[in-house]
């Protein structure tokens, strides 16, 4: 990033290549829309580029990048809620989403004679994650998939370590409650 700050365009290209998959994945886990995820990831890189001269290496670059991503995702969520483009319980992505109760009802007649297949498990897990609050979901994604510590998550979300611990323990309690019957 220091090379990027000095105006090295090749370094910026390398930065995009290194982080693009992680960033797209983060947005996809949060908003479940592949195209919007790419747009937001592109916007995040654009913001990095615009503020490259103001970058100070006081924290890890990934922390800075994901803080930008977190803000973008939050703004996108708020905007979508205001416009009511994405009604609660439905999804703009290319998946067949159903509420957890519906999935449970569909499967209860078949259990335990039949195991859920991987796609069904994925749907159940995704719905369980969707049921988390926005903050809990972000903390879970950063911790689970970015393997970030409570401290790093706190820096990204603008929270103290204790608050992150609280978010994650509540989130994992909810996930356990929603998913233990499928184990």
């Amino acid at each position, binding site marked *: 990033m220091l090379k990027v700050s000095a105006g090295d365009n090749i370094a910026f290209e390398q930065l995009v290549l290194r982080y693009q998959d992680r960033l797209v994945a983060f947005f996809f886990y949060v908003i479940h829309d592949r195209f919007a995820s790419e747009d937001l990831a592109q916007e995040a890189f654009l913001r990095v580029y615009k503020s490259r001269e103001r970058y100070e290496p006081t924290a890890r670059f990934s922390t800075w990048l994901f803080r930008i991503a977190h803000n973008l995702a939050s703004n996108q969520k708020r905007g979508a809620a205001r416009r009511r483009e994405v009604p609660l319980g439905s999804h703009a992505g290319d998946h067949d989403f159903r509420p957890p109760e519906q999935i449970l009802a569909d499967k209860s007649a078949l259990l335990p004679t039949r195991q859920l297949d991987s796609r069904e498990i994925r749907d159940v897990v*995704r719905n369980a994650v969707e049921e988390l609050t926005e903050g809990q979901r972000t903390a879970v994604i950063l911790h689970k998939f970015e393997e970030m510590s409570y401290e790093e998550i706190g820096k990204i979300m603008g929270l103290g370590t204790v608050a992150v611990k609280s978010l994650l323990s509540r989130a994992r309690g909810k996930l356990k409650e929603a998913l233990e019957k499928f184990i």
Partner: protein
Amino acid sequence: MADQNHNLKHDEIEGPEDPQVAELVSYLDGELPESEADRVEKLLLSNPLLRKNAELLDRTWQLLNSLEEAKASGEFTQKTLASISTVSGESGARSAIHRRWSLRTLLPGSVIVRGLIWSLAGFLACSAGLLLSRNARRERTDPTDAQILKGLELYLQYPKLWRIPDVEFLKDVSENTGNSPVSGEKP
């Protein structure tokens, strides 16, 4: 509890937190200090219910691995770099990014070497500019102008000549000036 939840948004606070779950989660996440982690491990060994709870927390956490992964599409890098070069407004940025080169990379060496290269380039550019402007000035001179300049001396005498009595007189004048542009012409 309020202290624990500081900085949390209002909608993130959902009633009392289970301290046992909070401790187990911190233990599973490796966020407990060593002494506290040892204490939790001892509790797990002695308490089957707590152990089962920890196992469920861990296994439901592992279920998140089944979530669909997303990666950037093949065109993502190109699109992103193109949008950035557009926004940056630098005319050379696009080619610099896409062709993987820049002026900085083309000019090797230290600042002094780069300075010398730039000075030489400036000198060459100035010389080329001077040569081009001289050529352009030459080309701009009209042949009609040259003709006029050639007969300038005769034209200067025009006030005296406009009442020329005859052709012989005109010939005399022409011989005196060394030019004969109007020989055979009537005034």
